[in-house]
């Protein structure tokens, strides 16, 4: 199987879907002539032209809203946020239009739209450029939320997202675009809403997504030295959550740790923790732990950023703590 970078896998997904359906188009800042700020859309302008690869001025609320309107009118927009940090100025369009117009119109409209782009911290971009937005968007009834960590998942899930008839928020990561992995030549789709066990194990369930996946796998590795076998579950879809996958694992291991990029108060992490304590209460031998950002605005300084972002060591510590391994 060919080895692709995540950016190439995403591009292949967009390219295939654009080839398959004339109504699919890409819109965002620098997606066209610049080939994408992070080169995800490289070559697409050349192939599909200005009509279907649309550069925008800096106006996220504007072009997010244009995407919503275009979706109502039968197109299938892929809206790129250069990073999800800039979606903060389009928050209302996602909350009050994308997520609500089907409901408000009592089903008169269908909104097949994908909002995608990199999310969460990269490296030394300071606080305004290092935020994880799933905690906000996962809360919205009316949308689906996806976060990918491998080229294979990126391609299969982005294709599904583009074909989905609902608004989908699709999270990538600047620091992961170059991550390579096998991607089959033949076409495939990955169903939205299904988690993936990235590493099987019997002792502790480690639940993760996005940038957290690599951290969790590294932590699992570290824990092996202590004889702990972690089951690492990559959620992939954050809304709707794959409760079954999580609960099946927790019922087996009786312990769960969440590892992810994002602030600690509330959000996706807290939701999963709450579901586990509620739906697997009698199976838990230890509290659910979360390893995520510290509760601060992300500092620019590298040494501080490294402390704020979850590390394999910090994750391993939490895993061992709830496995009651002396640390």
């Amino acid at each position, binding site marked *: 199987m060919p080895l692709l970078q995540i950016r190439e896998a995403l591009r292949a997904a967009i390219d295939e879907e654009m080839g398959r359906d004339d109504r699919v188009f890409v819109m965002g800042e620098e997606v066209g002539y610049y080939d994408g700020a992070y080169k995800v859309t490289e070559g697409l302008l050349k192939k599909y032209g200005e009509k279907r690869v649309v550069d925008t001025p800096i106006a996220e609320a504007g*072009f997010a809203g244009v995407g919503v309107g275009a979706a109502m009118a039968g197109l299938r927009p892929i809206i790129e946020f250069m990073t999800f940090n800039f979606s903060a100025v389009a928050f209302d369009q996602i909350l009050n239009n994308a997520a609500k117009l*089907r409901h408000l119109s*009592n089903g008169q409209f269908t909104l097949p739209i994908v909002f995608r782009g990199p999310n969460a911290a990269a490296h030394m971009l300071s606080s305004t450029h290092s935020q994880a937005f799933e905690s906000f968007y996962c809360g919205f009834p009316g949308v689906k939320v996806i976060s990918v960590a491998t080229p294979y998942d990126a391609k299969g899930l982005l294709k599904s997202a583009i074909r989905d008839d609902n608004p989908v928020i699709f999270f990538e990561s600047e620091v992961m675009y170059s991550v390579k992995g096998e991607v089959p030549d033949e076409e495939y789709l990955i169903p939205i809403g299904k988690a993936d066990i990235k590493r099987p194990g019997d002792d502790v369930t480690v639940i993760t997504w996005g940038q957290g996946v690599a951290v969790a796998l590294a932590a699992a590795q570290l824990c092996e030295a202590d004889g702990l076998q972690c089951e690492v579950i990559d959620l992939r879809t954050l809304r709707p959550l794959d409760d079954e996958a999580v609960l099946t694992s927790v019922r087996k291991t009786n312990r769960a740790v969440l590892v992810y990029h994002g602030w600690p108060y509330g959000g996706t992490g807290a939701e999963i923790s709450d579901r586990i304590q509620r739906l697997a209460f009698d199976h838990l031998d230890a509290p659910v732990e979360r390893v995520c950002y510290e509760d601060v605005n992300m500092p620019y300084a590298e040494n501080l950023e490294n402390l704020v972002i979850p590390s394999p060591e910090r994750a391993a510590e939490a895993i061992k703590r709830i496995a009651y391994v002396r640390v």
Partner: protein
Amino acid sequence: MSPPSAETSPAPVAGRDPDELRRLYTQMLRIRRFEEAAARAYTQGKISGFLHLYIGQEAIAVSTAELMKPGDRVVTTYRDHGFAVALGCDTGACMAELYGKKTGLVGGNGGSMHFFAKDHGLWGGYAIVGGHVPVAAGHAFASKYLGDGAVTLCFLGEGAMHIGATHEGMHLAGLWRLPIVFVIENNQYAMGTPLRRQTAVDDLTVRAPSYRLTSDRWVVRDVFETRARLAKAIDRARNDEQPGLVELLTYRFRGHSMSDPGKYRTKDEVEQWKERDPLFRAEAELRGQHGMSEEDLEAIDETVWGEMDDAVRFAEQSPHPEPEHRFLGHLVEDDLAAAAGHEPVQEGN
């Protein structure tokens, strides 16, 4: 408040056919009576939430409806009943929506502020000020993309001119030469705030060149004039790749919503504007120039009231939405499953 500066004297509009005027008059009257019936129901506590009346502005919706071709779209604000009635939505369904009934225009999901009737060209009433402007630009974007020849008409209050989404939506429409006309219904107030405390300019079309939009601006006194001038803007947008910005000077005779007594305006000012009321003027013209009798006029009114009484009756007798209805309209697959008789699934519950 003094009368607006753009008291453009309406050029005598050709073709003031009495039958046509009568038809337009009746349409305006239907909107007015619909809202009067709604206001009464509100006062009686039969409907709730917010209710923003369009009374005084009816000529705009009626002119617009006259000009729409199949596929054209109206996108407007929470002050949306007038467009629904003008575009031919069933007044029973409109009233039932205000009552939050199953038979309502949007099944009780949206209420007064969110009338949608795609099949009638009503692409929605939106309640976040300015938030619909980029969406409307998106509709026009799709028209250009698909080459369907349709025009989108995006209505907004003058109060919406100062918010970011409006700026971005208009800017993109101008940049991309989209088939859209933005129509400011400048009814002089945003809630209790008169224009002079909203913005430092008097004439809102001064913004048009910054977006490369064509512009026009007039006092809405005459439904023929309004139709004729709107038609030009629509034509430019449809055929000449010239998106437009039109400012219509108008007035709402009621408060911002039912809870607003409108104390910020003088009686004099309201009276001045009543003289410009296109409905009143159309009636006067029918009576004066066209010699319509009091009885004929009353007969029209009776028919219209009859329709509205029926609408109210329909609304009152309609059932509430089924409890499961609240789970619909979120994800497409849930709607399909429900249609096939399956139980709703709830995230996180």
